[in-house]
């Protein structure tokens, strides 16, 4: 199942022209700088941009083409706005029920009790939106959208208006959405750490156009895209929790037979996790060094030597257990080790971050 879209929208000093087919499952991030058209694209999908021309087919159902336009209130989408946009005249309960009551009973798949529990809203039900914190407001906005049992959930920078504390409060709920509901999510973000944590798939937008689109893990390490060239470039890897060593307070993760050790995390054995490894935290050795404090030394293959990202510095594309990894080294090291694509070397990984 997929979302097949093509939108063309002209505004003064801005032109959006995007054609794509994205999977109608999992979490897709619409990523790019501010002003690149991410929010506009999301609004087009929701039917909030009636002047946009184009085509939108969601799971085989036409919502828009050259001679039809399903208005916003008839599209089965849930929309979480950046600023929440709760109704000031209704309580939290009233806000949650607003959309729920407006869909036919047989389509009420998502149940209020389920959402109230998932988002931890029990104690807030009788409050007015003016009495809520930013994080609470955003949780209600998500609950309200989910209760319309949408075919796709659209979220416009749901974390952008929040401070660090509220963000930390919301993120676990977003991850639970991801894990527990089968509703596909499209979310807009300009923060790569959020995307790394939540998304499976990514659409990279630039000046109203689609620069690239695909699985997130592939896009973050592709040499022709700005993500891998950025200062904070990092690779995204998937691993499984194998064991915990409580004496040393470390956890052992595995990726296709390759082992990774990191400080003890409270995770069930067997669970799949997502790791991010910064390119600048990876060093290269031709043979596995002994007598070194770095715990993770993985056998890798050099796949690609990128152009200089800044004078004297080179980005290397590596492959470890079938997954892509990035390393940032100096040009002098490149020459000293005489690295070439296809070579088998060792990657010393100084730090691994668990992102979800």
């Amino acid at each position: 199942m997929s979302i097949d879209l093509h939108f063309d929208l002209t505004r003064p000093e801005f032109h959006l022209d995007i054609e794509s087919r994205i999977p109608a499952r999992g979490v897709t991030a619409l990523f790019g700088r501010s002003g690149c058209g991410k929010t506009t694209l999301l609004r087009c999908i929701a039917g909030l941009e009636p002047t946009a021309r184009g085509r939108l087919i969601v799971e085989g159902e036409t919502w828009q083409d050259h001679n039809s336009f399903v208005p916003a209130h008839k599209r089965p989408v849930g929309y979480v706005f950046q600023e929440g946009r709760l109704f000031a005249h209704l309580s939290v309960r009233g806000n949650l029920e607003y959309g729920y009551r407006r869909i036919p009973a047989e389509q009420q798949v998502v149940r209020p009790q389920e959402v109230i529990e998932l988002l931890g809203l029990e104690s807030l039900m009788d409050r007015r939106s003016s009495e809520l914190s930013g994080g609470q407001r955003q949780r209600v906005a998500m609950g309200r959208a989910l209760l319309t049992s949408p075919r796709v959930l659209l979220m416009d920078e749901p974390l952008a208006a929040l401070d660090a504390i509220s963000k930390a409060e919301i993120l676990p709920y977003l991850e639970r959405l991801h894990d527990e509901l089968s509703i596909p999510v499209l979310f807009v973000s300009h923060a790569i750490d959020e995307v790394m944590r939540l998304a499976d798939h990514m659409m990279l937008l630039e000046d109203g156009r689609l620069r690239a689109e695909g699985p997130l893990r592939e896009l973050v390490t592709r040499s022709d895209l700005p993500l891998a060239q950025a200062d904070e470039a990092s690779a995204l890897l998937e691993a499984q929790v194998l064991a915990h060593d409580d004496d040393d307070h470390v956890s052992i993760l595995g990726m296709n037979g390759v082992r990774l050790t990191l400080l003890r995390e409270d995770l069930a054995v067997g669970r799949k996790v997502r790791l991010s490894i910064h390119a600048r935290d990876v060093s290269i050795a031709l043979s596995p060094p002994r007598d070194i404090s770095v715990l993770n030394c993985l056998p890798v293959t050099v796949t690609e030597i990128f152009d200089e990202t800044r004078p004297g510095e080179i980005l290397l594309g590596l492959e470890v257990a079938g997954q892509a990894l990035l390393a940032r080294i100096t040009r002098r090291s490149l020459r000293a080790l005489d690295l070439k694509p296809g070579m088998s070397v060792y990657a010393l990984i100084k730090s691994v971050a668990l992102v979800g």
Partner: protein
Amino acid sequence: MIESWIGPQDTAALWLTLKLAAVSTLVLLLLGTPLAWWLARTRARIKLVVETLVALPLVLPPTVLGFYLLLLLGAQGPIQAMGGPAFAFTFTGLVIGSVFYSLPFVVQPLQNAFVSVGDATLEAAASLRAGPWDRFFTVVIPLSLRGFLTATTLGFAHTVGEFGVVLMIGGNIPGETQVVSIAIYDHVEAVDYGSAHVLSALLLGLSFLMLFALYAINGRFKLTTA
């Protein structure tokens, strides 16, 4: 009790004034709400002209407004020439005059209230499956309650206080078109200051109470969209 203070003709003038204000306010809310909604939402160029026309009674001498309405609604006026009734010097004529006269006091507060509801909230309602009418009744009206309260109070109070338009279009027929403000004028003309005092004090008290209630309620319930 009231009869011991004011004569039967003044009593009739008082009731007529209240009836006129009540009917005019009702008509104003029915007509003013869609007009204010249109003004709040439209981007048409003609909006500027309509806004100006609505605001005209704020600055125009009421006699000017009354004069044109008299020409329009009176005997040999265009309405009658097209086979309609002559509204001048009738209660209906008074209501028509009052509606024009008090229009800005109803339309402007409503328009401001509707604008402050904002596109953002309406889009949220649309994304929650509410169609246009549904959005208007379940989001716009509840969020505009203060605007409706202001519009109702100002429309009513302003109609109670009118003089010039009523005199031009309604004349001064006791029991039919004579309102309190005109009765007061008559009493003063006849040097009956006692009756003028009673009626004036009544209007002063009534107007004060209505505005006082409005400010008190608006100050207490902050029903804004913020």
